[in-house]
């Protein structure tokens, strides 16, 4: 076959907005042969998803294809009308899987019904034939006890299993092309690895072409031979993955790779920390109970099993674990936002529950994961940053604005930002504001809960640098909660690995990250993809 399966020429997608036409991607080209894989990499807003949605005719309401052509198996997809497209192409020859399996599955139908639905509708297949094929596909995606799963509902499965179901559903009609949009981003790292491996296996087994969209160069480099790097709607680099990663030509790609390497390289510059414990945690325990209904028993979940540790002045402690490991619960307990069932947290000598909210606030401050929900949208940056000073009355009212501006400057924001609203700021800028709010009271301890996971790679590094710098300048102790090994390696002096509410491994960051001892820790480290190295140009 000489003709490529998919050929996209000069595709541009535009949005009709209140302010005129806004082009989100332009000049997008892609050629894909049967059985090939291509990876599209870019940060949020780079247009990578939009160009794929355009092909699958899933563009949101105000978006439309403003120019270009999409040739699929010899036919121009843009020429088909909507009903032809749905009958011939979508779901049958082009299938798509999404980032959030939880929202993509219908919670009120069984897995079996959702899997067989398209086959029953479009192919007039018998229920038995459709069931047989669904079980086959569930087995293909390595779902344990496939036949039993058919009767289950989505909520009875883990996130990884749901994503497997989504993949099985995409494969039901033996598509020629599978588009995977951030297929592993919402999953835990150890599960991520399995799903990526599965996609690679399936692609070979079914001989599909595959397009994988991700912000994670590691994932893409593992899966695809060819790569397209996008930035702000433009394609900045395309070519063989190995070549692009070893000898990038565009400055954006180079910058992206440098950020990644820098993050990975920063291991083990352990700071000298004192032996004075600023915070000690003694045997804390937390159990959540989920109240039952009239006829159901209430259940309990032990989020944190009895745990003790100390944090020393000036150090950075990282708590690592997957979702549900209890790491965020510990962070909330230390912050005094939830109470413990057993044990206590001592700040210096004082138990945290004996401190007033204001006293605690002066010692310990949090930074949150999502800068989009951590700032009040109806208040100005100036108000948000200076609010702790208004509440605590530690300095004269006349000096508050000056102090707020100084603090904004410390986090790298000019005084222009003082009168702006959060909606006018980018994610990175918002996170800086959140940091400014946390440090304005000059706390001794900063608790960062996934401080960069909502941010793009190039901005992650800036924020991490800022945190390091501030820690040095203000002599703070930092507790970092994260699932991202690169972030942990960059910041941490000491690392705790948590699993099912317990600390299963602890020690110096360089030791734990490079030579993990427990099986779980080894698995965790093995599932971190590093981008193949080359000499930085």
């Amino acid at each position: 076959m000489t003709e490529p399966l998919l050929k996209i020429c000069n595709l541009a997608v535009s949005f009709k907005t209140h302010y005129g036409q806004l082009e989100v991607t332009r000049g997008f080209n892609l050629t894909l042969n049967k059985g090939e894989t291509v990876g599209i990499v870019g940060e949020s807003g780079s247009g990578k998803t939009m160009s794929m949605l355009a092909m699958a005719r899933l563009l949101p309401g105000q978006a439309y294809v403003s120019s270009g052509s999409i040739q699929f198996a010899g036919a121009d997809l843009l020429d088909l009308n909507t009903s032809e497209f749905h009958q011939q192409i979508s779901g049958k020859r082009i299938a798509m899987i999404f980032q959030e399996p939880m929202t993509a599955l219908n919670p009120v139908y069984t897995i079996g019904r959702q899997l067989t639905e398209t086959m029953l509708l479009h192919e007039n297949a018998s229920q038995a034939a459709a069931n047989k094929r669904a079980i086959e596909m569930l087995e293909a995606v390595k779902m344990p006890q496939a036949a039993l799963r058919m009767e289950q509902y989505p909520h009875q499965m883990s996130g990884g299993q749901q994503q497997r179901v989504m993949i099985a559903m995409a494969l039901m009609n033996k598509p020629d092309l599978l588009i995977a949009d951030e297929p592993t981003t919402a999953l835990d790292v150890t599960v991520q690895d399995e799903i990526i491996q599965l996609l690679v296996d399936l692609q070979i087994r079914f001989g599909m072409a595959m397009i994988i969209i991700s912000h994670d160069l590691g994932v893409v480099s593992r899966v695809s031979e060819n790569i397209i790097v996008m930035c702000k709607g433009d394609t900045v680099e395309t070519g063989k993955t190995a070549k692009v990663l070893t000898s990038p030509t565009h400055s954006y790609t180079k910058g992206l790779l440098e950020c990644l390497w820098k993050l990975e390289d920063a291991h083990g510059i352990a700071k000298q920390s004192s032996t004075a414990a600023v915070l000690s945690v003694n045997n804390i325990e937390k159990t959540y109970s989920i109240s039952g209904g009239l006829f159901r028993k209430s259940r309990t979940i032990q989020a944190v099993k009895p745990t003790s540790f100390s944090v020393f002045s000036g150090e950075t402690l990282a708590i690592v674990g997957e979702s549900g490991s209890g790491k965020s619960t510990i962070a909330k307990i230390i912050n005094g936002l939830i109470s413990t069932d057993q044990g206590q947290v001592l700040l210096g000598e004082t138990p945290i529950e004996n401190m007033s909210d204001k006293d605690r606030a002066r010692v310990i401050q949090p930074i949150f994961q999502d800068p989009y929900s951590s700032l009040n949208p109806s208040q100005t940056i100036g108000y948000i940053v200076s609010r702790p000073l208004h509440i605590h009355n530690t300095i004269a009212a006349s000096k508050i604005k000056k102090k707020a501006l100084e603090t904004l400057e410390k986090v790298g924001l000019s005084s222009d930002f003082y009168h702006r609203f959060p909606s006018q700021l980018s994610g990175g800028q918002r996170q800086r504001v959140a940091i400014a709010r946390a440090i304005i009271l000059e706390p001794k301890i900063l608790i960062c809960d996934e401080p960069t996971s909502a941010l793009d790679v190039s901005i992650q590094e800036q924020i991490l640098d800022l945190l390091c710098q501030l820690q040095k300048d203000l002599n703070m102790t930092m507790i970092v909660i994260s699932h991202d090994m690169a972030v942990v390696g960059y910041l941490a002096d000491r690392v705790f690995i948590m699993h099912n509410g317990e600390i299963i491994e602890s020690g110096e960051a360089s030791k734990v990250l490079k030579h993990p001892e427990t099986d779980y820790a080894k698995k965790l480290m093995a599932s971190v993809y590093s981008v193949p190295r080359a000499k930085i140009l």
Partner: protein
Amino acid sequence: MNIINKLTAKKDLRDMTPSEVMLRKARTHKGFKFGLGLLLVIAFLGFIAPLFISVSPFEQDLSMRLLPPAWVDGGTWQHWLGTDGNGRDYLIRILYGARISMTIGLGAACVGMLIGVTLGIIAGFFGGWVDQVVNYILTCQLALPGLLLAMTIVFLVGPSILVVIVVIGALHWTLFLVVARAATKRIRSLDYVTAAQAIGASKFQIMTRDVLPNLKNQIIVIFTLEVGVAILSEASLSFLGVGIQPPTPSWGLLIAEGKDALFYQPWLIILPGIALFLLVLSINMMGDGIRDITDPESNIE
């Protein structure tokens, strides 16, 4: 060309505060402009115009009883919209009625908002048994027959504008409560509320500074809806004789007084009916407009 377009579009978004964005949307929203315009006209006619008309709404002239509007046979340009059963000028009575309707509509919606939003924020913020108690009150309120209760209360306390406002307001807060409670629950779980707790803000500070300002948009929409409902409630109460008392001209009362003459002088009912329809229409259109304008997802061309 496209690139320039894109750049300018982006710049606009970045430089505008949320309120500027809303203002811009408001200027292009047809329904909103129509509703607001109509409302302003009615407000002008009700509050300002009567100052320039020397005719009193209470002056009776029994020789001019039950005149039809001027453009109908038997009408006279001395009384544009005719006269009622006591020979009072109908135009001026309807204009005065606009005052009563708007005062009661706004006043009652304010009373309802005060009750509903306060309870809603408290219930949503504290949750647990507080939420259950508030929910119980809500269920009781929903189970009561509103109009019947209003009639009883007004009958017992004695009718006056203030009593009517308070009674109607006290019976129309459930929508405020439901919306405020749901939105508060959502906001409460957001990180900026946690951040406020972490900097040592008191619960009251969080409720007034973090929760309330972010409820603003939803509350405005409910408020406009409730103004319309309150105006209709006042008309119903007055029609039933327990609202505004004669000779004060209220639209509901005008309809009630006109109903005896329904078959030979229908204008007495049609005219205040049209006035009522236009006022409620303008307020509802404005409310819909505000909903579109304040919704960040909406995109009005």
